[in-house]
């Protein structure tokens, strides 16, 4: 299978890529690791006239601490997120997610920025980044702006980014002492994509829950905050009973659609189970 013919230009800086994006308009498409875009182009689901390769831009790959944030360059591959000592120390839930994307070869090529910008409702990073309250830094010819994750994923394969913007960085707040993070998913047995997944960030203070963010994937057009679950956890002592009662509300504001693999009822049920698993693991990690 071959993509339809297209032109190729390699960008060597974000500024150059922005100029190229402006020049090619709707007919240009940004290429990062290509592990969503190239399969779509081979199936002729996408036929851009020109690919603007970001892979040739130095400096967009890497993970560093900046103040209270872990800053991940948009071109950082999944394998580097999964194996990063900084990620594993500060945000093990993010490493959980990176380590279950696709397969080893995909993780060696796919990028976090590509995954986030593509906004596949069955992808892992959008869900875990929602739980972790990340910010997405985008650049245009007029400057940078930072978008909160809760406003970023607006619909199926759609984000709040404008057509003339490029995602350059993912900023994840490093949780304070007493915090734990986790991500778990039920993968589709053939594709490995999310059937249902859950991410959690829990902060425990004097043995009760000081704050909680729980996000669920697979139930809608993008990640969904399990607000009822979060509310149920806050201020309570995190016994198994409390966690179970909170997780039982994980699908409360979701209206999943049935597909060939899973019914809507099954997805809602699995969401409660995986929310519980994510919360339990986050609470265990918070105690360490």
């Amino acid at each position: 299978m071959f993509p339809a013919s297209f032109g190729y230009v390699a960008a060597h800086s974000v500024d150059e890529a922005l100029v190229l994006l402006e020049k090619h308009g709707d007919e240009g498409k940004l290429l990062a690791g290509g592990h969503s875009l190239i399969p779509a182009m081979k199936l002729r689901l996408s036929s851009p006239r020109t690919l603007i390769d970001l892979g040739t831009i130095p400096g967009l790959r890497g993970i560093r601490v900046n103040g209270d944030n872990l800053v991940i360059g948009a071109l950082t591959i999944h394998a580097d997120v999964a194996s990063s000592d900084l990620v594993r120390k500060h945000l093990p839930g993010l490493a959980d997610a990176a380590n279950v994307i696709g397969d080893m070869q995909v993780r060696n090529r796919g990028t976090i920025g590509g995954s986030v910008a593509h906004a596949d409702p069955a992808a892992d990073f959008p869900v875990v980044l929602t739980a972790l309250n990340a910010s997405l830094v985008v650049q245009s010819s007029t400057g940078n702006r930072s978008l909160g994750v809760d406003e970023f994923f607006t619909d199926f394969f759609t984000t709040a980014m404008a057509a003339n913007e490029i995602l350059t960085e993912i900023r994840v707040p490093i949780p304070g002492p007493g915090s734990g993070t986790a991500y778990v998913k039920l993968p589709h047995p053939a594709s490995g994509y999310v059937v249902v997944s859950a991410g959690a960030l829990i902060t425990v203070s004097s043995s009760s829950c000081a704050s909680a963010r729980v996000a669920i994937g697979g139930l809608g057009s993008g990640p969904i905050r399990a607000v009822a679950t979060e509310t149920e956890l806050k201020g309570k002592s995190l016994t198994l009973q409390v966690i179970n009662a909170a997780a039982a509300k994980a699908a409360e504001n979701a209206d999943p659609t049935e597909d060939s693999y899973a019914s809507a009822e099954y997805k809602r049920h699995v969401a409660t189970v995986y929310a519980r698993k994510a919360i339990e693991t986050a609470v265990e990690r918070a105690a360490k």
Partner: protein
Amino acid sequence: MTAEDEYAAVPIRVTVNGVSHDAVVEPRTLLVYFLREQLGLTGTHVGCDTSQCGACTVHLNGRAVKSCTILAVQADGAEIKTIEGLANGDIFHPVQEGFREKHGLQCGYCTPGIVMTAVHLLETNPHPTDEEIKHALEGNLCRCTGYVNIIESIKWAAAKMGGENVSR
């Protein structure tokens, strides 16, 4: 600009199995077809052609990747290793030897890709557990063996590469 200019072929330089190649590729040429058809390295196979099966696995700058999901132009400046570059003359790589010793293949179609995946695994994790081997093999499909002997082959190779006295 005419359509012809717009879709113009792009010059690339890649090092494949230690040999530098200058070539001109259409932007839509996938790396696997470049390797097979332009360089004649047909050991890398096309299986599913949809990033699932891993038969096309090669090493790009030292990492196992699926060459059906990479454009040849994206490999410009890269070091590539294919199955043809593993053996040292007549001396097999320990992973190749392991597949022979432990019957890690039947029809052999998936084998080059699985061997390249296994080599990358052992380069990054010289003593993997069975679970770690299975996790690494998630992107490779074999419809003959049931994977049991593939895992045995990789463990044999890990032992040999670790200097253990391995049985034949």
